[in-house]
């Protein structure tokens, strides 16, 4: 019996994903551990490793196929001694869970994600699996007639799912989508609009933000922090460590300050669950990173144990890979606290929506020169407003205020962060 290669679940909550690219071709010999394909989830692109070995006999879901349900059979592997005739009659409907070993995302980091308990419930796929019509080498499979119809209707063929042989786009596919405004690239008419299809990330953001804003009793606490000392320290550090390639940002200080403040006020490093309040042992600080099409929150784990240089290096790496959608799920899931910094965009202050099940999120505004009162004197200082949005079910006002007091101490006395 040919071995079925199934669409892997890259995270416990993943139900479908995009099969981005095959890295092997039909006929290739595959060894266990070989990277065979790239899968995109709502937030990341990941490599898939083969679990079994054999000859890749048939690719059932071509590259660039969207909405491939977890556990869909995506390819068939022939074991040694089997020939292609063994493929006849193979049932390629989605098998029950755990029927066959699912390829593992690589590298499988063992860390379990906190707070999330749901498991995927793959359902057998009824009817045809949608197949994107882009074959290997990115040639779009499309009939001449469909190509012409699409051109005349101003349709983008790359967004049409082909139902012909091997996912070829045929007349009926083009006719089927013609009425959809989303496809039209024709000149806009008054009152018209472009409908942008919901991708995985947009759906996730919509669902999670709605759920949080609806279910979590939010309240914001704002405090001003003077940055002059921090900026001086930053300058000194960066000058001193320039030869080591180190360049610490204000945000790196903020992450460090948050981690240390969370250790001082552990009640702020917590989550509300029906079973009880979880006070996390580590300050796993998530950092909101804007990327094309949405945002993602990679996590600096155990930030309380990491120095500024380590945080800086890690955040740079995470942000770069986030923008390339190359993060592993465990790299962006399960933080205990989030920092969202819009200071570089000139925002003075704002209150973020909590990233459940975290208890708090800190919104960081711009550091700017403001009039300040020193004793009875009016002076000028560089001031940054930060707003802590708290989940009142777990973080009361006093806890939030206490956290902010510590945070402010660290920011305004950066030398304390050296401890």
């Amino acid at each position, binding site marked *: 019996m040919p071995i079925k290669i199934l669409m892997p679940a890259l995270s416990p909550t993943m139900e479908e994903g995009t099969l981005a690219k095959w890295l092997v071709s039909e006929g290739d010999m595959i060894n266990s551990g070989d990277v065979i394909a790239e899968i995109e989830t709502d937030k990341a692109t990941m490599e898939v490793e083969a679990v079994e070995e054999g000859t890749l006999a048939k690719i059932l879901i071509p590259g660039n196929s969207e909405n491939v349900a977890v556990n869909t059979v995506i390819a068939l592997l022939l074991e040694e001694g089997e020939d292609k005739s063994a493929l*006849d*009659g193979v*049932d*390629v*409907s989605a098998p029950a869970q755990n029927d066959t070993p699912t390829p593992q995302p690589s590298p499988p980091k063992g860390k379990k994600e906190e707070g999330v308990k749901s498991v995927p419930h793959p359902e057998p796929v009824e*009817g*045809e699996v949608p197949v994107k019509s882009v074959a290997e080498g990115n040639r779009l499979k499309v*009939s*001449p*007639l*469909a190509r*012409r*119809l699409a051109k*005349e209707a101003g349709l983008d063929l790359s967004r049409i799912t082909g*139902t*012909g*042989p091997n996912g070829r786009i*045929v*007349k009926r596919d083009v006719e089927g989508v013609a009425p959809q405004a989303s496809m039209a690239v024709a000149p806009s008419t008054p009152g018209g609009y472009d409908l942008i299809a919901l991708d995985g990330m947009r759906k996730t953001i919509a669902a999670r933000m709605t759920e949080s804003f609806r279910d979590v009793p939010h309240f914001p606490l704002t405090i001003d922090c003077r940055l002059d000392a921090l900026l001086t320290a930053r300058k000194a550090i960066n000058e001193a460590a320039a030869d080591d390639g180190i360049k610490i940002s204000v945000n790196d200080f903020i992450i460090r300050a948050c981690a240390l403040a969370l250790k001082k006020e552990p009640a702020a490093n917590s989550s509300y669950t029906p079973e009880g309040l979880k006070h996390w042992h580590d300050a796993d600080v998530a950092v909101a990173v804007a990327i094309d099409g949405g945002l993602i929150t990679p996590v600096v784990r155990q930030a309380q144990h990491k120095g500024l240089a380590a945080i800086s290096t890690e955040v740079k790496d995470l942000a770069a890979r986030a923008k390339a959608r190359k993060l592993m799920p465990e790299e962006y899931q399960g933080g205990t606290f989030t920092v969202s910094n819009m200071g570089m965009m000139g925002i003075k202050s704002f209150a973020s929506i909590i990233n459940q099940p975290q208890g708090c999120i800190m919104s960081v505004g711009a550091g700017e020169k403001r009039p300040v009162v020193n004793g009875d004197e009016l002076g000028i200082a560089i001031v940054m407003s930060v707003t802590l949005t708290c989940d009142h079910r777990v973080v009361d006002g006093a806890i939030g205020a206490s956290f902010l007091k510590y945070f402010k101490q660290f920011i305004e006395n950066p030398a304390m962060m050296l401890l």
Partner: protein
Amino acid sequence: MMSTQSFDLIIVGAGPGGYVAAIRAAQLGLKTAIVEREHLGGVCLNWGCIPTKALLRSAEVFDLMENAKDFGLSCTKPDFDLEAVVKRSRQIAGQLSGGVKYLLKKNKVTVIDGTARLEKGAKAPKVIVKDKAGKEAAYSAAHVILATGARARTIPAAGLAPEGKFIWTAKEAMTPDIMPKSLLVIGSGAIGIEFASFYNALGADVTVVEMLDRVLPVEDAEISALAQKSFEKSGMKILTSAQVEGVKPGKDTITASIKTKGGKTQNIAAERIILAIGIVGNVENLGLEALGVKTDRTHVVVDEFSRTNVPGLYAIGDLTAPPWLAHKASHEGVICVEKIAGNKPHALDHGNIPGCTYCRPQVASVGLTEAAAKDAGHKVRVGRFPFMGNGKAIALGEPEGLVKTIFDAKTGELLGAHMIGAEVTELIQGYTLGRTLETTEAELMETVFPHPTLSEMMHESVLDAYGKVIHV
């Protein structure tokens, strides 16, 4: 107490729908049985497509012999032996039926001889087969495909049914007891016109009566008109918009009273009448009523994957909706079986089923007629190319005919192709392939057609539709 043998799939009827489905099912690993009450290969192989082609080939060769002079040859007093002509036809049918038997055996399909009927079963209806000795055996399967085909339509009340002498259906017409000097063919569809062509070539005085206003009424009107002209030129008499109201057998001839166009009645006496007024599905005695299988005027109602309204029961081919063609039945059978096996076949696109009539001249078509294309709202571009402009046609001595192509003026879709003339039945697959692949005029124009062939006309017809024809 009957013992029940069980299969994955039982197919009832071993015609071109049933036996092809059985072979494909076996290839897909299904334990398959096929029930046949008469001959493997069904009507197509035994009483239809194949034996008539054998007869028509004899007629064609005879026609060439008669016109040998045109080719610089001499053939004094060409003659024929009808019995030998028919014998050859029967031999070919027998040979091919034997071939089907071999193919089924090779693919390990169990062949059950006998007549089947259905009874309520577990997953699918049970199949009860009565053999020639009258003994019954029960078989069960997860899936049952009905492929019992169809037979000639008769109207006994009007005397239009074989009575043992004067009135033939296709079956009697291909095993004739005499060479009729005069012949009345009722119906000018493919079957009627093919027999009219055959007997006309052998010298019979043939009259064709057609109820509609033109012969080969499913074809493009322009092709029908050319066909009628050609038939009449070869000596056939054609009455269109005419209806046989009754027949009166005499001693040596039978007289049909025919209501013609103007409402006048005309009597025509002939030694034989061939009934070719359509077909009826073989829906009887299968137990369909008891199972509640939905039928529509002798045909079983099915969905795009040949599923009936009864779980586990399927129907393909002539037993279902038109077109009633062997290749349609085979394709439906394969699609049905692929679906049963859990594959994801595409439903058959009825617009891409070619139709062929092996009269002289031959007629072949695929897709929409010009009138149907316009009715469907298409603005059309029509290309035409005559056989007269084609070197190979002239060399063959076949200068009569036309290749007509119909394109959607806006999209360049090949909406239909209609051909009349020598060997067009062998040419039509080119356009069918084009339609299946959804080519536009651009790809057809870019395709290199070999010279000298009749197929060059297919190219020229496309060029003509776009004002680029060379040889006219």
